[in-house]
């Protein structure tokens, strides 16, 4: 879902850095205020898990593949701000270690996936939790993915309006909303199902517990 370097113009990523910097400051302050023996390791390990889960591709008919993002899982387990920090860290590592995504696209990716996605996930979870816990977890995963894809499609579609060469050709991402909204959002309606299942699994397996529980033997490999 996340956009690589070179597709977003400075008119987009510079203001996005301003917004994201403010959000990162709030998130770090909240994390420091609530830091305890369980939070930091759990956040780091689940961040690493989200990183690796993004590497597990699910084949689609026609030879293409998709991967989950873990937005709903992180948001439900850790709340909006910690999920935002965690996904920002995943995106930073992916950008710098693997050239996947990029540092100019980082604030937009982080705001879309980490903040908007997490807000949508937590909102859907709170809305449905009184009715059915499992449905709420699934909806959180689905809503987080679809909301962030919609924001990404909006930002990408904005590029031809913001920057054009004197001859009228686009300087950065060339397609407008008519193309980006269906092209980005429709596949993520399906990817959201996989993220919903992931949030459901994680919500059942990884609900926060006290850090004093005795470590079990590691799980056996599949």
């Amino acid at each position, binding site marked *: 879902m996340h956009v690589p370097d*070179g597709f977003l113009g400075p008119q987009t990523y510079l203001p996005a850095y301003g917004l994201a910097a403010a959000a990162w400051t709030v998130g770090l302050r909240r994390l420091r205020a609530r830091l305890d023996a369980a939070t930091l390791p759990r956040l780091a390990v689940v*961040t690493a898990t989200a990183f690796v889960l993004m590497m597990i591709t699910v084949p689609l008919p026609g030879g293409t593949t998709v991967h989950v993002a873990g937005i709903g899982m992180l948001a439900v387990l850790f709340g909006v701000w910690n999920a935002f920090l965690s996904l920002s860290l995943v995106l930073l*590592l992916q950008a710098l270690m693997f050239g996947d995504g990029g540092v100019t696209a980082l604030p937009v990716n982080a705001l879309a996936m980490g903040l908007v996605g997490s807000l949508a996930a937590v909102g859907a979870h709170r809305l449905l939790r009184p009715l059915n816990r499992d449905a709420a977890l699934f909806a959180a995963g689905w809503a987080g993915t679809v909301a962030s894809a919609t924001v990404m499609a909006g930002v990408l579609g904005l590029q031809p309006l913001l920057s054009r*060469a004197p001859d009228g050709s*686009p300087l950065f991402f060339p*397609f407008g909303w008519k193309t980006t909204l269906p092209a980005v959002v429709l596949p993520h309606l399906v990817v959201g199902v996989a993220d919903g299942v992931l949030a459901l699994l994680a919500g059942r397996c990884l609900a926060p517990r006290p850090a004093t529980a005795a470590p079990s033997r590691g799980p056996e490999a599949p």
Partner: protein
Amino acid sequence: MRDRALLLLYLGAIVAATFVHEPARLAAALAAVLLASGRRAPRVLARAARAAAPFAAAVSLGWLAASWWEQRPAGAALLRLNLRVLLMTCLTFALAARLDLQSALGFSRTLSFALVLTVSQVLTFRRLHADFRLALRSRSPRRASTAASLRHGAAAGAWFLRRAEHDAVEIAQALDARGFFLDRR
């Protein structure tokens, strides 16, 4: 200090690349980055091409088709877009590979600690993920079917979630035992 300077240089170069729009200048900058990479240049270029190809190819082919349909020239825009993407990705692999991220982000103790924990887990999990992929390939006489790939993906995903739970408890206890949280209470 060196890492922070390298990070700032990298960020400056990346931002500068988004303000250059002439294909010739972008190509010159790409050549300069590859020259500066020395013997690593072919590897940097190959890694950058592999990383940028999926998204850039999809956008380029789409733009090419749309331009052909509307009978307008697509060459300059395509060249500019792909050169810029390749330049920025090459910069990432050429400069960021020499960067010690932990040292560069050392201004925040919490951030650098979270980074160390996360990167160590990422490296372990990546190796395990590669092992699982190779295991599936080795036990599939032919290319694994879609159903087998789906089952494998689900089993690996569930395994990583259980492993994450196990590791989180273990790391928390190790940190607590070493007094990491004592000066924070």
